[in-house]
């Protein structure tokens, strides 16, 4: 094995933990600046209304109030709207409808939570009190919150510019080929299903502090972001028109993101702009209720899926039609989620020769929807894996056998799917085999009989999946509509005595980058792990990087580090060659030593670093002093982690409560640097997947009120809702990045939901249940059991 990978694979305990377990983390809301003011946003409590007038006079006169701003103040300063970062074209070639997304509502509010007025005061309490004194005169308009209502003929329009509430009507695949395959199919199986709307709910609510230095003209924004450079670009260039060298964006310790902290939000622009106006720092901290109605939500798709099969159960063609709810405005990456992040994965792990998918994206009077852990891949995975079990149900073919029969075989890689993606590697039989064994699939009938004897229903469900992450090749995504690139950057600064600072454009908000990246760099440079520090989250310190989402940090950011280290090592070899009076080609670098091959003459990494900074005996004519290199890495392809999740549930027929009794995940995430961290990422993802399947649901009533806007109403998975989560890995290497890594941040949330619902449907098979939409709540299950009037066989 190459020296680069030595030391990799150890469950090193995390560097970042010491500050977090002792209460010394630095989250945005922990910071305060001298002279800081507090901003409270008055938000709409109406789903859809015309703003007739806003009377700010009483609020302005309230104690401690420094300023009250509305859209008129922003307009007067030429502040732009919140931009969208991805453009989709409809079937007919026309660009998506892209309505204005004002920072503060202008003329109309379009969802509960739409910000209208910013009240800024000396204290948060004073700002809150003053906001109560605002008088806003609304004229209510009819609203639509649900997909079915929004696409109904004559539905009220969220934006006048979007007839039928349609943002775009897109498709992918070969329709004629699919139609022909359906004509000759022996079996056709059809399933209607929804993917429930979720609220990401990172435990740290969003927070933003804007600051302005009138002497230099410099703006600073400290914000709870997964990608400070993206925020600087979007806010600086499109909203506030601040040149980048005058704008610093800092994302310090961030308490979880799961996608919800990717996007540029209005509040960031408001505090930054207000700081410039008032020449004082301005802080806004979301409370949880606000988070429910202003953080981008996830999912909310309604689909019809149809598979055509031959008589032996081989897949011939897949046809999918989806309506995706995008909410009231386009969030940063929203258009990409149901299209290029979802429909392109409809091949799944199967060699379906023809696929055609249509996606109609619509506006509703709800919080904008964007990527949430998995972003599009959980939706396509749920659709496929539910369809698989439904095919098994309808045709009588065993569900494991059906999967095996249609798997892309391990020797078929690279595998070109009919929906654009080319998978580089994988072995789906091996992850399935390992999971079946770990979950003791064959022992299930005995466990079921035992559960039945206790009066409980028991079911087992499987999901075999692949996802596309490590985003993304810039040229490719540019052709697909991305308005940004998706490479990553790393800068490696070797200090004179041989310790190393690594500057990365990725951002850690729980993933443990300070540890994994330090392991990677230490092992490649052959230096102690303690001598490596990872720096991220500050646009004034790091080169322009794209941040963390789409399980990209190691696959793209780590690969950039490898590239930068290659440059360091090459330069080190040149310095060593000079010191050792050898040819560069003869100097090899191994275990932290530059050695003349075949001799015992060598220089340590530290000696070379010192020589680079004290170049007394140095090839100064050919080589610059110093030892610091930057590399940008643009991936050649997505990465394709995959695997198998098996869920076993018990249902109490008296109450309808489902208990997950066993959960087994066997995932192929490519090479693993820190198994402990990978396991933790997968367990966390699975917990969110079980939450989606059984508990979580963002509910709007018919009028557009968000009725699940607190932890009392939105069911978050708690410790006693979840089982132990057994995680195993089977490895095939990514073939196109230097580390062979695939990414592990999202697989848990992608693979698990269908395994849970497949288990629930299996448990309810005696009740004639063919499909159940998420979340499979106790009430839903109890109603089915109760309506059937059937008694347990055991009774």
């Amino acid at each position: 094995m190459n020296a680069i990978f030595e030391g990799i694979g150890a469950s090193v305990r995390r560097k970042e933990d010491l500050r977090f377990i002792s209460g010394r983390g630095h989250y945005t809301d922990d910071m305060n600046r001298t002279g800081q003011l507090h901003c409270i946003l008055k938000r709409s409590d109406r789903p859809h209304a015309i703003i007739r007038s806003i009377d700010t006079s009483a609020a302005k006169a309230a104690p401690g109030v420094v300023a009250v701003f509305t859209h008129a103040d922003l307009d007067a300063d030429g502040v732009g709207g919140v931009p969208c970062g991805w453009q989709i074209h409809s079937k007919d070639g026309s660009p998506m409808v892209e309505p204005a997304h004002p920072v503060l509502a202008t003329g109309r509010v379009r969802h509960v939570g739409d910000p209208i007025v910013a009240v800024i005061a000396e204290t948060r309490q004073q700002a809150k009190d003053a906001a109560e004194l605002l008088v806003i005169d609304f004229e209510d308009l009819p609203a639509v919150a649900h997909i079915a209502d929004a696409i109904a003929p004559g539905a009220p329009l969220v934006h006048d510019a979007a007839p039928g509430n349609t943002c775009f009507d897109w498709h992918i695949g070969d329709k004629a080929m699919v139609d022909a395959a359906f004509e000759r199919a022996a079996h056709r199986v059809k399933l209607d299903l929804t993917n429930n709307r979720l609220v990401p709910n990172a435990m740290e609510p969003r927070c933003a502090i804007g600051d302005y230095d009138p002497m230099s003209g410099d703006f600073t924004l400290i914000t709870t972001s997964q990608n400070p450079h993206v925020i600087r670009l979007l806010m600086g260039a499109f909203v506030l028109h601040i040149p980048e060298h005058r704008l610093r964006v800092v994302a310090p310790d961030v308490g979880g993101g799961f996608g919800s902290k990717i996007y540029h939000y209005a509040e960031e622009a408001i505090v930054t702009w207000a700081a410039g106006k008032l020449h004082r720092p301005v802080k806004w901290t979301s409370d949880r209720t606000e988070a429910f109605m202003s953080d981008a939500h996830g999912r909310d798709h309604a689909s019809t899926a149809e598979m055509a099969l031959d008589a032996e159960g081989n897949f011939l063609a897949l046809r999918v039609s989806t309506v995706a709810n995008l909410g009231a405005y386009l969030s940063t990456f929203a258009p990409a989620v149901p299209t290029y992040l979802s429909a392109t994965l409809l091949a799944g792990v199967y060699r379906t020769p023809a696929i055609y998918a249509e996606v109609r994206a619509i506006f509703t009077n709800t919080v904008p929807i964007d990527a949430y852990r998995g972003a599009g891949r959980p939706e396509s995975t749920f659709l496929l894996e539910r369809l698989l079990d439904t095919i098994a149900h309808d045709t009588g073919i065993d569900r494991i056998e059906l999967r095996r029969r249609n798997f892309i075989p391990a020797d078929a890689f690279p595998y070109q799917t009919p929906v654009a993606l080319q998978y580089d590697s994988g072995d789906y039989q091996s992850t399935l085999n390992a999971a079946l064994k770990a979950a003791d699939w064959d022992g299930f009938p005995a466990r079921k009989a035992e559960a039945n004897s206790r009066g409980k229903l028991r079911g087992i469900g499987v999901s075999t999946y692949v996802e596309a992450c490590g985003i993304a090749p810039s040229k490719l995504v540019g052709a697909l509509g991305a308005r940004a690139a998706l490479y990553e950057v790393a800068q490696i600064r070797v200090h004179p005595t041989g310790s190393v600072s690594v500057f990365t454009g990725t951002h850690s908000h729980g993933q443990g980058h300070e540890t994994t990246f330090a392991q990677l760099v230490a092992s490649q440079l052959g230096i102690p792990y303690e001598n490596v520090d990872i720096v991220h989250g500050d646009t004034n310190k790091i080169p322009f990087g794209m941040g963390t989402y789409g399980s990209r940090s190691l696959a793209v950011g780590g690969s950039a580090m490898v590239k930068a280290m290659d440059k360091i090592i090459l330069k080190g070899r040149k310095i060593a060659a000079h010191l050792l009076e050898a040819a560069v080609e003869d100097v090899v670098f191994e275990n932290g030593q530059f050695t003349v091959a075949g001799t015992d003459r060598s220089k340590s990494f530290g000696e070379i670093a010192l020589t680079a900074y004290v170049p007394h005996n140095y090839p100064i004519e050919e080589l610059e002093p110093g030892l610091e290199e930057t590399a940008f890495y643009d991936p050649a392809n997505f990465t394709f982690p995959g695997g198998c999740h098996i869920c076993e549930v018990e249902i109490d027929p008296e109450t309808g409560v489902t208990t997950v009794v066993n959960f087994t995940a066997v995932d192929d995430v490519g090479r693993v640097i820190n198994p402990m961290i990978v396991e933790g990422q997968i367990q966390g993802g699975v917990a969110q997947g079980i939450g989606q399947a059984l508990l979580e649901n963002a509910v709007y009533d018919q009028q557009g009120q968000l009725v699940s806007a607190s932890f009392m109403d939105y069911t978050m998975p708690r410790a006693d809702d979840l089982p132990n989560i057994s995680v195993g890995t089977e490895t095939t290497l990514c073939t196109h990045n230097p580390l062979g890594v695939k990414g592990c941040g999202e697989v848990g949330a992608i693979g698990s939901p269908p395994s849970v619902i497949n288990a629930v449907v299996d448990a309810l098979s005696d009740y004639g249940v063919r499909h159940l939409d998420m979340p499979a709540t106790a009430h839903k299950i109890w109603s089915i059991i109760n309506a059937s009037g059937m008694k347990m066989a055991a009774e």
Partner: protein
Amino acid sequence: MPNVTLTVNGKSHTVEVEGRTLLVELLREKLGLTGTHVGCDTSQCGACVVHIDGNSVKSCTTLALQADGTTVTTIEGLAAADGTLHPMQEAFREHHALQCGFCTPGMVMSAIDLVQKNPQGLSEADIRHGLEGNLCRCTGYHNIVKAVSAAWHTMHGKELVAAE
């Protein structure tokens, strides 16, 4: 405005507060103890848990005035003066029971109370039930349960057999 006098992490403070000031606001804003977090506004998440006179309490649901005359311990007050970590802190680190760290202070404070009040033993189900008032969005709780179980053994001087 009224005063409250309380001892926090061994130091006595007298602080002027409004009647509506919450204990968590006093800790974070007046005393600069930002290790105690706020994750919700409905007393559901437990990010704000501290100990008042040895009992775990949600400081977002406690008025500062109610803490008058009490002894409060926050996450910052757990480690010994020489920096030696509390066994629960050690266990969280050892078992990877935290990711983003935001729930961690409240989780650790709740877990210590749970372990202290249950010297007779804690099953996995007891731990899961006992931590039901603390939300973690990152870990899936699996490793938190392992850490609390391990810390129970250290704190009660028992040897840990078969950690799984």
